[in-house]
């Protein structure tokens, strides 16, 4: 943030030649290999990279908190001039929390569940703040106020499980700040949080930095977060920094082929007709010694020299890249275009339609386990899915969007309402008649690790639907169909005899797609199919889904929280809040001219990968209320900056702004 006059920047953290190894001494995995970086006072340096690139290991090496199998084998870490790696453990403890604070990715598990949050922060105060060590409570309250925890007097005695994820991350930040550190390491601090909460936490970090002048080393995989937070950027690939740059020039002109490919694989509205770039192949295993560029096998711009020796570092350590080629000689091929059938203007008859769909989970209490209330996960929802088109269902965690997907497919039975498919109301169907219809609609899940039985061969997994629906024919026909499906999703025929764990996350998601397509469904519910994947892999899966839709005229219900995926893939968008749809319409309308205050806040919270676009816009305060006890009137009124008296009393009616663009908000009532 604060650039400071050039030349007088005070370096607070200096890392040079850091090498970290994991695993046994004789067969080590070199997770970090020769990393140099500087962090100035008041500056944010962002390390960005995909999973497994070693960025978290750098953080743990700095803190000397590596897992028991890990060790730093080379390099130097200087914190305000002191060499951390040479300190005895007793003195290192003083630096942890005192000189460097750290916050982690998972606020849910990073706090001791059986100790009150106040006490956990007080421990840090006692260690690092002699002035308040005797009676830390006042200081803890001050810290809680500083990190924006409302009602700190009450919160201080609460336990972690009583706080929301965002609040927990604020407690973690308070804990890290207790020793007034000069450096804060934030390892994916917002990855586990919803976008609106992420926006709050990132804003908090910026405010605290402005207040205290600490240097922040932020680790993330999200280029949007980079653009929003960074002063300078370092791109990690396979344990090495491959590029460092000031944020402005990085986003204007990334130099390393890997950095460029990352940008080109990001989905957004502009690439709708094109398809996304993919990075072929996989990150090489790090248990080897490299004598060539680590990215060479995946690089489209690779030339003869890349096959001869290790690439040099070009430019300044603070502003350069690791490649043989000059910037203007790096040429990348045009994106492989995904076939995209432009959605027909007139969608025709809906394939599946839900009306007033409700899924309530009873809350039982008392001696006789009587039902005293309901968690209204889905509460009166209407939507229609059209052949060959994609409806994106967008919302934050806990809004009920996954429940909608399962209820539509009758994996969960609805408590009320109807789901019409082909003239039948699915919620009334039972037994054989429902079983026969199941081949028409399938589902793809989020987690490629748990979506396949680890004890089954891929061939059997893909054939499961064929056999269950009795459409396989004889063994040879079945085999042929399985091979054809694998080919369709781009997997080799040899996959048939292998187990799921032998495949990477992206490949497993392809297998899951093949499994769903086996029964030739007309509708596929995609439940966050790419949120567990890295961007370059996500691009492959999105391209595949798009191509398949064009080929097979599939209808998608795409459940996601990722707005850029929506912009790339969806024809229509429905925004969910607390079990109901608050706004729905064509994708370009909803994303460009959102009508509902919640949609507006949600879109404003999404970090955009463009550092010039640091908008100070509407930030949503507070957390989503519990679906067991939704607020009266409009569910959103407690957090809505434009709420009126009427919003507190009545749930808003639905208003049509344009053809097919509907919103449930009293703001638009006068237009009628």
């Amino acid at each position: 943030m604060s650039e400071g006059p050039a030349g007088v920047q005070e370096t607070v953290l200096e890392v040079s030649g850091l090498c970290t190894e994991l695993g046994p001494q004789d067969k080590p995995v070199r997770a970090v290999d020769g990393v140099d970086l500087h962090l100035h006072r008041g500056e944010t340096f962002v390390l960005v990279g995909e999973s497994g690139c070693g960025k978290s290991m750098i953080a743990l090496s700095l803190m000397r908190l590596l897992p028991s199998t890990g060790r730093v084998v080379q390099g130097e870490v200087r914190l305000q001039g002191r060499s951390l790696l040479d300190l005895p453990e007793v003195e290192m403890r003083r630096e942890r929390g005192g000189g460097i604070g750290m916050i982690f990715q998972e606020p849910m598990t990073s706090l001791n569940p059986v100790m009150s949050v106040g006490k956990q922060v007080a421990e840090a105060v006692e260690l690092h703040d002699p002035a308040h060590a005797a009676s830390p409570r006042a200081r803890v309250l001050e810290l809680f106020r500083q990190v924006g925890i409302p009602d700190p007097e009450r919160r201080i005695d609460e336990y972690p499980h009583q706080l929301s994820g965002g609040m927990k991350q604020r407690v973690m930040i308070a804990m890290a700040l207790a020793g007034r550190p000069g450096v804060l390491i934030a390892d994916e601090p917002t990855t586990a949080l919803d976008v609106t909460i992420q926006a709050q936490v990132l804003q908090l970090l910026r405010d605290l930095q402005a207040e205290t002048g600490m240097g922040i080393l932020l680790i993330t995989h999200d280029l949007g977060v980079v653009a929003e937070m960074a002063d300078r950027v370092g791109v990690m690939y396979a344990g090495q920094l491959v590029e460092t740059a000031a944020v402005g020039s990085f986003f204007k002109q990334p130099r390393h082929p890997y950095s460029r490919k990352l940008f080109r694989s990001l989905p957004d509205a502009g690439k709708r007709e094109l398809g996304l770039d993919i990075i072929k192949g996989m990150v090489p295993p790090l248990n080897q010694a490299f004598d060539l560029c680590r990215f060479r096998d995946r690089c489209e711009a690779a030339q003869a020299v890349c096959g001869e020796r290790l690439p040099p570092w070009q430019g300044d350590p603070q502003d350069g890249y690791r490649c043989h080629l000059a910037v203007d000689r790096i040429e990348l091929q045009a994106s492989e275009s995904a076939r995209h059938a432009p959605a027909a203007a007139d969608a025709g008859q809906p394939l599946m339609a839900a009306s007033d769909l409700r899924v309530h989970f009873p809350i039982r209490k008392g001696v006789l386990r009587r039902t005293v209330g309901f968690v209204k996960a889905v509460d009166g929802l209407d939507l229609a899915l059209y052949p060959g088109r994609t409806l994106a269902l967008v919302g934050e965690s806990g809004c009920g969007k996954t429940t909608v997907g399962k209820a539509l497919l009758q994996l969960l039975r609805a408590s009320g309402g109807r789901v019409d498919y082909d003239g039948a109301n699915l919620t009334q169907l039972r037994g054989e008649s429902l079983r026969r219809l199941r081949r028409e609609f399938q589902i793809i899940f989020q987690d490629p690790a748990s979506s396949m039985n680890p004890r089954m061969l891929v061939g059997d997994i893909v054939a499961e639907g064929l056999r269950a629906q009795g459409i396989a024919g004889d063994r040879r026909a079945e085999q042929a169909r399985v091979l054809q499906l694998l080919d369709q999703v781009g997997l080799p025929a040899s996959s048939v005899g292998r187990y799921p764990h032998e495949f990477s996350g992206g490949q497993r998601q392809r297998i899951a797609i093949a499994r769903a397509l086996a029964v030739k469904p007309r509708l596929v519910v995609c439940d966050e199919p790419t949120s567990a994947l890295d961007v370059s892999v996500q691009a492959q899966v999105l391209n595949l889904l798009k191509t398949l839709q064009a080929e097979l005229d599939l209808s998608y219900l795409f459940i996601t929280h990722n707005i850029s995926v929506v912009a790339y893939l969806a024809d229509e968008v429905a925004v969910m809040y607390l079990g109901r749809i608050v706004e729905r319409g064509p994708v370009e309308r909803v994303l460009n001219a959102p009508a509902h205050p919640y949609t507006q806040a949600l879109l404003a919270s999404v970090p955009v990968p463009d550092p010039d676009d640091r908008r100070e816009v509407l930030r949503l305060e507070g957390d989503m209320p519990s679906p067991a006890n939704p607020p009266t009137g409009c569910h959103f009124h407690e957090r809505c900056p434009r709420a009126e008296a009427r919003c507190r009393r009545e749930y808003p009616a639905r208003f049509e702004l344009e053809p097919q663009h509907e919103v449930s908000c009293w703001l638009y009532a006068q237009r009628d």
Partner: protein
Amino acid sequence: MMAYIVRRTLYAIPILIGVNLLTFLLFFVVNSPDDMARMHLGAKRVTVEAIQQWKAERGYDRPLVINTSAEGMRRFTDTIFFDKSLRLFAFDFGQSDSGRNIGHDISQRMWPSLAIAVPVMLVGLLVNITFSLLLAFFRGTYLDFWGVVLCVTMMSISGLFYIIGGQVLLGKLLNLFPISGYDVGAHAWKFLVLPVIIGVVSSIGSGSRWYRTLFLEEINKDFVRSARAKGLSEQRVLLGHVLRNALIPILTGVVVVLPTLFMGSLLLESFFGVPGLGSYTIDAIERQDFAIVRAMVFLGAVLYILGLLMTDISYTIADPRVRLE
């Protein structure tokens, strides 16, 4: 919370009825009282009259479930089922087959049982936690490795040998303690020391190893990393964070057996001649006194269910996350 306790207590009723029916089936239906009498009287004196008399003395001469010869309610109350099984619900254990009042015996004998079981549990807990915490502190070193080897070795030795070995070594060869016997009042302690030592030592192997796994499980959790990241020393991390979390399964594991401490330890009591409920049970089994075995089965079931209930309640006290609904 109250509603939960009430509900769980009500749930105990069908379980106790189940236990009751099970014992009834086992003791009176699988074998008839005639068989028992014949067994008890031995082969020589088995005449029809002797059997009849044996049964009459103990009230086994009535019909099992329905007394067709009686009137009104007595059709159901004047039966073996009512008299021997249903009365247990009122903790009325009746007479043993040798004619003693079982309820009175139990109330007398539970104190020596507790005098051994309670110290064994408390000292054992302390020793095991200390030892396993030590192993956890030195995890990955040779001390840890040999500690685990010691644990596995110790848990591979039958409890019988701990008792026999302890008696021979400490009692017979070193002559430190009396080998067996029991006394009330001030001299009781010298009869208790040896069984308590043996009880504790025989629990170290499996106990310490189990606690060590619990500690290691907690040590690998994220919050321990956060605790280290704020600069806490390894000792404070272990004692303040790891121990506190691992104590939840440890304590609830202890709570579940608390009520059954009344039942005493079968082996210790019988080897050391302690007149507790454990040796009472063993004697009853050896004398084939069915009335006592029945009573102890029922008592054991009641105490077990009590233990389950106490476990649930102790969770809410030890773990702030648990709310009983």
